[in-house]
């Protein structure tokens, strides 16, 4: 005989997180359940507004009965699941993910949390050796030259500055796929950029690496909005940083509505010394989820140019 469970019962599940009984919405991810329970899980490639790609692996947790660790950001909760977020295995993997990234990527402009986690988990990027110089050419898939013995390969490469609106500094890229998702299926539907190459040489690229003005890019800047490391940056911010004049303490952020069309996108205008230095858009806005078009994102350049 089958019993029909009441609807209310089917919509939540009971699980255990670090020894505590927790109730979560059916279909929620382990990450959501952990956050609701006040347990911090570091994340890098996860963003509420994008489809989880679960590639960075910094959010891994241990689920009893599983062979390998599982990514909290994309694994749905299940009834009776026993999750550990702070075991030795979890801490080792998170420490190593952070260490591998910090040893190969310039994280100097990455979000503050990243630096806090590097400290908290005890990552020691320096033990992989001093950084090797940039490779003269990008290796073809399946082939590479070993770096000089004793040095650690990195993704260091020249900054791409091929337009007046934003720069791409892929030496800062952790390959979180967020910009690709924002440019493609998850928001903009332009598909100007994609992950190219493979392995350690995988990178974000236009077709055959053509400059942005020759690509399909429409300068919506939605990729900049989701980039967690500052690899994608307004020219204004990039130049102020280069001269040492970027100072968030001197900036005021004003939330306003974009004046250009009738959609009503929310803008956050960042002003330093009476000058607009960048424009962001709140992720939690129910119409635009952080996305804008070229006018809202960069329209201030026209404003200043004409004014």
């Amino acid at each position: 005989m089958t019993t029909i469970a009441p609807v209310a019962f089917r919509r939540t599940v009971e699980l255990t997180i670090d020894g505590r009984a927790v109730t979560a919405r059916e279909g929620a991810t382990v990450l959501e359940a952990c956050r609701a329970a006040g347990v911090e899980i570091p994340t890098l490639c996860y963003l509420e507004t994008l489809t989880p790609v679960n590639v960075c692996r910094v959010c891994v947790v241990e689920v009893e009965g599983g062979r390998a660790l599982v990514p909290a950001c994309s694994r749905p909760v299940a009834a009776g699941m026993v999750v550990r977020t702070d075991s030795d295995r979890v801490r080792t993997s998170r420490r190593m993910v952070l260490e591998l990234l910090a040893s190969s990527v310039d994280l100097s402009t990455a979000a503050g949390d990243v630096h806090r986690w590097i400290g908290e988990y005890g990552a020691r990027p320096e033990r992989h050796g001093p950084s090797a110089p940039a490779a003269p050419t990008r290796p073809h898939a399946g082939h590479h030259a070993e770096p000089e013995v004793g040095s650690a390969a990195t993704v260091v490469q020249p900054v791409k500055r091929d337009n007046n609106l934003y720069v791409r500094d892929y030496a800062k890229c952790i390959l979180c796929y967020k910009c690709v998702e924002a440019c493609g299926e998850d928001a903009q539907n332009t598909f100007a950029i994609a992950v190219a190459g493979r392995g350690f040489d995988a990178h974000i690229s236009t077709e055959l690496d053509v400059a942005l003005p020759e690509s399909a890019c429409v300068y919506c800047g939605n990729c900049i909005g989701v980039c967690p490391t500052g690899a994608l940056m307004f020219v204004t911010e990039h130049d102020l940083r280069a001269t040492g004049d970027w100072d968030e303490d001197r900036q005021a952020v004003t939330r306003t509505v974009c004046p250009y069309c009738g959609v009503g996108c929310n803008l956050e205008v960042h002003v330093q010394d009476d000058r607009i230095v960048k424009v962001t858009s709140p992720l939690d806005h129910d119409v635009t989820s952080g996305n804008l078009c070229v006018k809202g994102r960069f329209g201030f350049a026209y404003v200043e140019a004409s004014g």
Partner: protein
Amino acid sequence: MDLRTTGAPPDARERQAVDSVLGPPESGWAGGERTPGDGRAAAGGLARARRRRQVLLPALHALQDRVGWISLPALGYLCQRLDLAPAEAYGVASAYALFSFEPGPPVVVHVCDDVACRAACGGDPAAVLAARVGPAGSGATLTWQPSPCLGHCEHGSAALVLETGEPGARMTLAPFAAGDIERIRSLGGSLGGALDPDVLPAPRAIVPQAAGEGLRILRRVGRIDPASIDAYRAAGGYEALRRALQLGPAGVIGELKESKLLGRGGAAFPTGTKWEAVARNPARPHYFVANADESEPGTFKDRVLIDHDPYAVVEALTVAGLTTGAEQGFVYVRGEYPLAVARLEHAAAEARSRGLLGEDVMGSGLRFDLEVRRGAGAYIAGEETALFNSIEGRRPEPRNKPPYPVDRGLFDKPTGVNNVETLLSVLEVLTVGGGAYARLGTPESTGTRLFCLSGRVVRPGLYELEMGTTLRALLTMGGGVAGGRPLRAVLLGGAAGSFVGPDELDLPLSFEGVRAAGATLGSGVVVVLDDTVDVADIVRRVARFFRDESCGQCVPCRVGTQRQEEALGRLAAGRPLGSLDAELALLSDLDAVMRDASICGLGQTASSLVASALRRGLLSPAHGGPGAGPVADGRSAI
């Protein structure tokens, strides 16, 4: 989608290459001549674009084969035809080793420098070749490149020759000698007829066992004409399909379950259970894929089966399709196996003409057909979900699981996927019956298994043994270590395998037998390493392999394989950072994060062999570790 492609038009050869796959463009919107009739009608939308995307890889192949590289205008034209963004198409193409993005010489020779050939040659074949004919990548009309295993390990050296043009040429030379480069160079220009792809070493050398010695799935190899469907049928071919049609899907699945057949592609999943899950899935359509991407270093079994018994692969996939309710099958063949592709396509065409594929298979009223797809140089495309992405025209990146392929596989539909050896074992199950099959081998590992014996052994080749046969028995059948030298270790399972020492030769070769010893059968790789082989060099080659073949999606594997290679390089050079202990701790941390936090099996096993070598002390100088250097004696095939 805002489709924007570069304005420059493709040249005539590029256009012809793309059109050879896609047919002539229908209208100006698709890149043809604009006519007034084109008007401003939409060309079919997103759904059509999604369907067309699956011809991306065949079209890229056409460009590479005919033109020799993929230019921006060619990519733009292709994308216009497919309604695909050029950045995405480039992202896909650049993930494969066999596509180039700059013009090069018309002839490229890919020379294997992987583990089995290294062991057999007594050193690095690429280094020997560079000393003789000049460095890799140089040369105006012909160049050569080192390559991972080309799947001809039983010959101890191998090369894949690719000539651009129409018709062009693609063929394997095995065994390969440095002099072959000079021979090809002297041919200057068209190789087409000069190197006959059918000039293969006598099959007897590939399968050293005699007909009487219990051969089951190898029984036809080298003994019938692989191009003749009549020869196949005379040798018992298509009896299994007849039996399957009598039994019906439930009956076939019952036999498979009774046989306890486990998958031979690496994960040892019960085949009957997999087929049942696909068959029962209510979503439609279903697909079935034969995984012939075989790229695990030291593995050549699937190549031998396809090259010499292609009809068996076609028959087995037909049985799989009819049993699981799939009307469309795919054989995904490694891009470096030109002969296998040709033989399979020929076999499928013949089967179609005899009513054994198509609308009414063997008069049953049931429909099944198959398509052969060529890989393009990516080991990761053998992982089943990366394989689906590859067929679909996406980057060959493994997907997150669950969902599993039986629920959402190829084109997001229920999909069965089996290794070629598994599929041929299914024919054997149907031939002898599930119960009889289960009595072969051990209770847990039933049936027979193929072993790819290579390295420093007297009779390398493909062996078929009942599960549970000892490693010693296999080595004995192979004539023992070449030159009667002492055995140092056996590399068992492949790059993701482990080392077995001379003290462990009584290891039973069954799933449970090797598991108990902390090893794996993997893809049946058995590379014999004698006391002249530099084991540290073998381990470093494997580390380089994983570094080169990682798809790059997840951090543990993308950066971990790089760091692992660097650490081994420091150890080999005798220049540890900090202390030796610090290096060992670092390798152990890399092992932990790759094993525990990688997305797929590649990253999860990329440190297996390193860990195994460290456990056995095989990286110390006494075993060819730092300082021992390559050895000069032994046969040098190159």
